Structure formats: structure tokens, C-alpha cells
């Protein structure tokens, strides 16, 4: 029985994850049954594709730089200094994560457009006389939104690295006469390197493969948009394959590099970290810290504010703030056929995928932590890989692999949507059950056996109650992530009656009349759902929200 379940877990991952990926790989090399580089040559020969690759890389690098410049100092400020309202401020910095930049972008269009709030405001106070084109071609807008969305990931990863940082290594350097700059360069930064690299590669790949934001800004010359567009004529134009191949290649490269980097040298002293004595911030430096964090916070909450404002604004043309307020868009959300279908679909799909995640996550977590089955390491690798492989790649793989089969997304994408949602969130569930099992010392179970309890009693009364908070927390998160999942929803849902929320928002945003406002209302609801689920799950496992975003 145990073996059958174990083999099923493998089969599931192989069929719905490895097989689609290998299909994409093989398709990008096979032309009429022969191995050839023709597809690549054709793709790279295309001017737009070349521009897209360059733009995507540029975007990725710029976002890494901007998130570093904001996230790293922020992490140091919170790890090393003490100041009033620190904890409240810290939790506010999680807020950027709850709105997907895709939704935020719709609201930001309102603020950043030619006659949007910012320009109007600046003209009103007389700073400028002609409106500035903030969005420009769209690239700048994408860059800003992704930075504002992603810097908390850098902040969280560096913070956690700093929490485990043995401050005495720094003190030893100072003690030997090292300057601040030298100590940072030679000691602090190298020791933070694994955490930094992990965060930087997540951010890089995120920026490289984000589909929602560029689509809202109608910026086409990016790898992700090219992949999305190539799906329409996938049978005649194999260009998409080579771009997906490129993304997989980069992802795996970063993945391997990160592993190598961490394994090459011992970064952990193996000793308990000495607690930092936080320095008190006072006077000017306190003022500066407040000003800097306040400004950053204001900027990163702009997308949130803008969609909330848009969702309740009656009229918002040529004014800094809306000129009237209304609830009608929320009524439309629950009254309109398209939005109602979207909400219904998303809840159905996300519930199904969460169920799969909880069951599979618990089972695989159990196999990894509590058994010595052969091939566990492989299962571990397989189940964690979806964390690195972008959603757009998985969705593209499904689309091309299952075309003209009973699972063809053009007929009914619901099953593929459920599975793509669950594959993408499975790593979180496996991780959280695995770590629950790890924290649950086996002797707790042995103690139960030793007083005469059976396997079932032990499982019911000891193991399950102790593991379940992690499991439910993961489930709640997986549900809300799935509801707001963008790339696979955009790619796989083809017909209107199969649209999940994300695709409904995308469709609405493109309509001229009240579409964007309804989209914002839907986005606000989604934002609250995600926010609430973070809160619930962090309460369930009494962990800090940030730990869900930590890698490594």
C-alpha cells in the first residue's frame, strides 16, 4: 500500500511536471523528426525576439539592483537598530506582497498616466508645467511595479540571514582593527551571500517571467509576452519553444549556481549565533530612518491605494483624487455574469488544487521525513523544482503537450488549471509538512508506542495534531495564491466560461468603459483574501509571515 502511494506521487510529478518540460525541450530541437538548431536560429534572427531577450535581461538585472538598494539597507536597519514603532513598521513592509503587481499595475495606470494624479498634482503645485510621461513605453512602469512588489522578498531573506548571523564574527574583525567598510566587504557580505543570492535569483526569475504586469502596460518586447503571444499559433510557429527553453536554462543555471555557492564553503559557524544587541536610534538618524522607511512605504503602497481608490471612484478624470465615490463596482463584481463566473471558477479550481496540495504535500512530506524509501532524494528534487520553474513555463508546457488530447485546454482547461495550480504550490506544502515532521522529534511517537499505543492511535493523537497546523497554514496560503495565480490562468483559460479571476481582471482591464474599475474592485477583494490568508496561516503556525517567503 505504502509503495503504491509512493509510486503514485512519483508518477504524478513525472507526468504533470517532468513530461511537459521535456516535451518543450525536445520540441525546441526537433524539426521534422531531426535534431536541429533551426528553431533557435530562426528565433534569434528575429529582431523582436532579440529585443525581447535583451529587454527581459535588462529588466531582471535592474530589478535585482533596485531591490538590493532598497531591501538590504532596510534589513540592516531592522536587524541592528532599535526604534519606536519598529514592529508595526516591520509588518507594514509585508503589505506590498499581498497585491500582485498585475492588479497594482491597473491602478497605477490611473496615477501615472499622462493626466493621472501624479502629473496633475505636480502641475497643481507648480513643479512642472507639462505632464511627464512616466510610463513611457511601459518598461519604466513595469520596472517600478516589480521593484515595489519584490523588494520585501530581498528584505525578508536578508533579515533572516541577519538573524542567524553570528555577530561575533564581525566583532572579531573590528577587534583585529578592520574598518567598517572592510568588515562589511570581507566578513558580513560574504556570510550573507547564500541568502542574498537566493533572494536575487528568485527576484531575477520573477521579473524575467512576470506576464501580468507587462500585459497591463501593453509592453510587448519581453520574453514572457512573446511566449504568451506565441501560444496562439503554436502549431505553425515554434518560436515559443525556444524562448521557454531559454527560460528553463536560465532557471536551472541559477538553481545549480545557488546550490554550488552554498555547498562550496561552510557558511555556518556551527555555533549558536550570538544575539545582536540592537543599537538605539536617536535624533537625526532616527528622523532619517523614519523619513526613508516612510517614503519607501508610501511608494510601495501607491499601487494598493490606487486600486482601492479606483474601485470606489465614481469619476476620476483630470483630477488628483476621484471626484465622486460609489460602491457600484462591487455590486457589479457580484452581479455581472463574467465576474461571477470568474469568482465561481477560481474558488472551485483553487479548492480542488488546495485539496490535492494538502493530501500530496502531507504524503510526500511524510515519505521524505519519516521513511527510508529508495529515490527519496529524487522525489525531493522533483517536488521542489516547481518553486524554481516559472508558472509561464509550466502553463506553456501543458498547452503544447495536451493540445488535441482529451485534456486540450481549448475545450476544457479546468483539470489542467487545477493541476498547474497545485504543482506550483506543492513545494510550499511539502516544505511545511516536512519541517513540521522534522521539528516533531521521532521520540514523541516512540514515547507513545512505548506506553502501548498502536500505530493508528499514535498517528491520530500525537503525529497528526502536531503536524496539522503547518499543513493547514500551507493549505490556506496555497488557496489564496491559486486564486490570484496569473500566468497559468492567462495562458490556459481560453473560453470565457472557463475564466478564473485573474483572466477576468485582465479582460476587464482592457475594456474602456467601467471595466478597469470593476477589475480594481475584484483586485481589492483578492488583495484582502491574500492578506487575510497570510494572517490566518501565520497565526496557525505562530510563525512570522516572512518565513513563507524564505528560501534556503
Amino acid at each position, binding site marked *: 500500500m505504502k509503495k503504491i502511494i509512493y509510486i503514485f506521487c512519483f508518477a504524478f510529478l513525472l507526468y504533470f511536471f517532468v513530461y511537459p518540460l521535456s516535451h518543450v525541450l525536445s520540441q525546441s530541437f526537433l524539426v521534422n523528426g531531426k535534431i536541429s538548431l533551426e528553431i533557435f536560429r530562426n528565433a534569434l534572427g528575429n529582431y523582436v525576439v532579440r529585443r525581447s531577450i535583451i529587454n527581459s535581461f535588462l529588466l531582471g538585472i535592474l530589478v535585482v539592483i533596485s531591490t538590493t538598494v532598497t531591501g538590504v539597507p532596510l534589513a540592516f536597519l531592522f536587524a541592528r537598530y532599535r526604534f519606536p514603532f519598529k514592529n508595526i513598521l516591520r509588518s507594514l513592509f509585508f503589505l506590498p506582497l499581498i497585491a500582485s503587481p498585475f492588479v497594482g499595475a491597473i491602478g497605477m495606470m490611473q496615477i501615472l498616466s499622462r493626466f493621472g494624479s501624479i502629473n496633475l498634482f505636480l502641475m497643481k503645485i507648480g513643479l512642472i508645467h507639462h505632464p511627464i510621461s512616466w510610463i513611457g513605453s511601459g518598461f519604466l512602469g513595469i520596472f517600478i511595479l516589480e521593484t515595489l512588489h519584490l523588494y520585501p522578498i530581498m528584505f525578508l531573506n536578508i533579515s533572516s540571514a541577519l538573524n542567524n548571523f553570528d555577530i561575533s564574527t564581525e566583532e572579531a574583525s573590528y577587534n583585529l582593527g578592520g574598518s567598517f567598510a572592510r568588515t562589511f566587504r570581507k566578513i558580513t557580505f560574504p556570510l550573507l551571500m547564500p541568502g542574498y543570492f537566493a533572494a536575487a535569483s528568485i527576484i531575477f526569475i520573477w521579473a524575467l517571467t512576470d506576464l501580468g504586469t507587462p500585459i497591463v502596460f501593453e509592453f510587448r518586447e519581453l520574453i514572457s509576452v512573446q511566449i504568451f503571444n506565441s501560444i496562439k499559433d503554436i502549431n505553425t510557429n515554434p518560436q515559443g519553444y525556444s524562448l521557454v527553453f531559454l527560460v528553463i536554462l536560465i532557471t536551472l543555471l541559477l538553481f545549480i549556481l545557488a546550490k554550488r555557492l552554498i555547498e562550496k564553503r561552510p557558511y555556518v559557524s556551527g555555533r549558536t549565533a550570538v544575539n545582536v544587541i540592537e543599537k538605539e536610534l536617536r535624533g537625526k538618524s532616527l528622523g532619517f530612518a523614519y523619513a526613508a522607511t516612510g517614503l519607501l512605504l508610501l511608494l510601495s503602497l501607491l499601487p494598493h491605494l490606487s486600486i482601492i481608490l479606483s474601485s470606489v471612484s465614481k469619476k476620476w478624470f483630470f483630477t488628483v483624487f476621484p471626484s465622486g465615490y460609489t460602491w457600484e463596482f462591487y455590486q457589479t463584481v457580484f452581479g455581472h455574469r463574467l465576474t461571477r463566473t470568474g469568482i465561481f471558477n477560481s474558488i472551485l479550481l483553487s479548492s480542488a488544487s488546495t485539496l490535492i496540495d494538502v493530501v500530496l504535500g502531507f504524503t510526500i512530506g511524510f515519505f521524505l521525513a519519516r521513511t527510508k524509501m529508495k529515490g527519496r532524494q529524487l522525489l525531493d528534487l522533483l517536488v521542489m523544482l516547481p518553486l524554481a520553474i516559472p508558472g509561464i513555463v509550466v502553463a506553456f508546457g501543458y498547452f503544447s503537450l495536451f493540445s488535441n488530447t482529451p485534456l486540450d485546454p481549448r475545450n476544457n482547461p479546468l483539470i489542467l488549471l487545477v493541476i498547474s495550480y497545485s504543482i506550483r504550490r506543492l513545494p510550499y506544502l511539502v516544505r511545511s509538512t516536512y519541517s513540521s515532521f522534522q521539528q516533531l*522529534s521521532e*521520540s*514523541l511517537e*516512540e*514515547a*507513545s*508506542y*512505548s*506506553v*502501548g*499505543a*498502536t500505530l493508528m*492511535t499514535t498517528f491520530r*493523537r*500525537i503525529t497528526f*495534531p*502536531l503536524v496539522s497546523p503547518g499543513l493547514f497554514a500551507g493549505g490556506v496560503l496555497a488557496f489564496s495564491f491559486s486564486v490570484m495565480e496569473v500566468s497559468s490562468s492567462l495562458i490556459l483559460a481560453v473560453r470565457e466560461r472557463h475564466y478564473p479571476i485573474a483572466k477576468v481582471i485582465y479582460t476587464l482591464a482592457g475594456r474602456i468603459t467601467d471595466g478597469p474599475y470593476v477589475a480594481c474592485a475584484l483586485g481589492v477583494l483578492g488583495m484582502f483574501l491574500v492578506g487575510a490568508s497570510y494572517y490566518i496561516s501565520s497565526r496557525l503556525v505562530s510563525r512570522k509571515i516572512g518565513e513563507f517567503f524564505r528560501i534556503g
Partner: protein
Amino acid sequence: MGILTVKSVSKSFGKAKVLKDVNISVEEDEIFFILGPSGCGKTTLLRIITGFIAPDRGKVFLGDKDITYLSPAARNIGMVFQNYALWPHMTVWQNVTYGLEVKKTPEDIIEKKTEKVLEITKLGSFKDKFPPHLSGGQQQRVALARAIIAEPKVLLLDEPLSNLDAKLREEMRSEIRRIQKETGITMIYVTHDQKEAMSLGDRITVMDEGLVIQTGSPMHLYSEPGSKFVASFLGDINILEGRVVSTGDFTEVETSEGKLKVLRKQDFAAGDFVEVAFRPENAVLSSGANNISCRVNDVEYYGETFKANCITRAANKIELKSFTGNMKQLESGADIQFSVAPENFILFGKK
């Protein structure tokens, strides 16, 4: 046959032979110690007795019943885990009653037994608390209470005091002794701390590298160790190399410190190469039989006792130990002479 017998048990993990033909026999009502350095196989032996792993060869008997392959739940052998393994989501009361509940004991009997066990372990006022809110010593008591309430035939304790600080450890040591006397439960106690074993044990078995080296009462093992390993594991010891020159009531051994007269306990023949050993506290600062001269290198002062590290003219290193009151404080650099009574020598054969 004792209440628990381990017969010719061997166990390997991969290539590593962890237990090699181990035999022990535990008597009813005693505290039996399994003592050895880490990695000697004592934890594996314990897990074989509890049934969490099965031996490759050999058998385990409880009384005269073969329990080698019985499930842990069916053995009626209690266990106190090194990390206590208290269930954090249950109160002290729920932790303790669990063992009775799974055996479907009637409610009123559970109530009565638990009250009594909590009284013995002095936990009455903590019964509604959750384990993470208790101190180390209190957690230790809960672990004990949970194990003894099921009235196991044998109670195993796996380094139960290793997570406590020195002061608390001494306190809990006498607590365990008291609880053992009050309940009459047979205990098998695994540790690497020879002080715990010496002060608490009725009998000790010393293990090393998967082998049982020697079994006996603490006093027997200390004063008549069968090997250099046992001798040095139980306390400090000085060793001189030598050769037997004559035998009789006393064995005379020629060493680099001259001829030493040793009370005969084992048979050696003239010409045998041997090692002559004595405990540092058995050296007396006066001349008598078996005089040895040396120079004091340095003195370590412990308050009630002190230890002098000395070196003889033949370059043998010698440690001397005494109560501060009994021997006047030695000073570094002093030349001294000490003697050891013939009955205080231990001889080890040399191959």
C-alpha cells in the same frame, strides 16, 4: 535468569558493527547502568530492548518470554527519553494519563493512579500546564511520571539528566533514586557520565566499541577494573610499565621506579610484562613500602580536593590527589616522596 536478559545480541548498520555479541542480565528491583563513551553502542542496545530496532542476531527476554521481535507497544517496557519527548499539545495531566487511556483503563482508576504518580513526582500543582511552560527539572519529572504510570516491568532511562545543569542534575539524581525506592521499579539507565553510574547504580556494565567490557558493582569496578579502559573510564589512574620478577603472596614487579610489591590478586608468572596501576588518591605522602620520588610540576586546586601533576626522575608522569585537609598543600617545584600500599595496586597483563 534476571527480569531482563539480552543474549548474544549483534547489530550492524551498513559496515559499522555497532553491537558485537552483547550479553547482559538485569535483576529485579535494581538500577542497572549501561555506561560507555558516546558511540559505544549503548543507545542502540537500548533501542533494541525497547523494540524500536531489531537485532541482527541474538535475543531479548523479559522474564523468560522472548520479546526480540515484539512490537514496542506490546512490551510493557517504559522509557524516559533523553529529550523527554513530552507531547507539547497536551497538558501534564494528558501526557501522564495517555498510557493508561490507550490501554482502555476505566476512568476512576486512571484518576486514582494519576493523582498518586503526580504526588510521587511532586507534580500535583502543574497538572494543567503545558510542557513548554515547565522548567527543565519539571519536564524531567513529567517524563518520569508518564513512564512509570503504566507500571512497566522495566523502565529504561536514556541519559535522562544530560539536558540539566550541574546543580539540578545532582538533585534529580537523588529524586530518581527515591522514586525507584518508592515504586520498586527495575531501571536500566544509559549514560556516559561515570559519576551518575557510580552514585546511582546497583550494578554497572561498561561498554566500548560495541562490546561489553565488564559488569559489576560500582565499587568492584572502581577498585578492581578488569582492563585499563574500565580503570580510566571510571576515574584517574597512574600506570607504570614493568616486568614480574617473583611471585608468592606478593607479586614483585621491576619498574623504572624500582621494585614494587603488589598484593597478589591475579596469577602472573615471573618474566611476564605487566602494567602496574594505582589511583591518585591511594598515594600517601610518607615513606613505607613501594616508595617513589618525584617532583611536583603544578598543582590544581579544587577546594575540597587538590591534584598534583608530578614527574619522576625516570620521566613517568604521576598524578596525586587528596583532600586538602589530609595532605598539606604541595607546592610546584617541590621534591617529594610517596608510597602506595601493596593492596592498592592493580595489575594489567600486557600482550
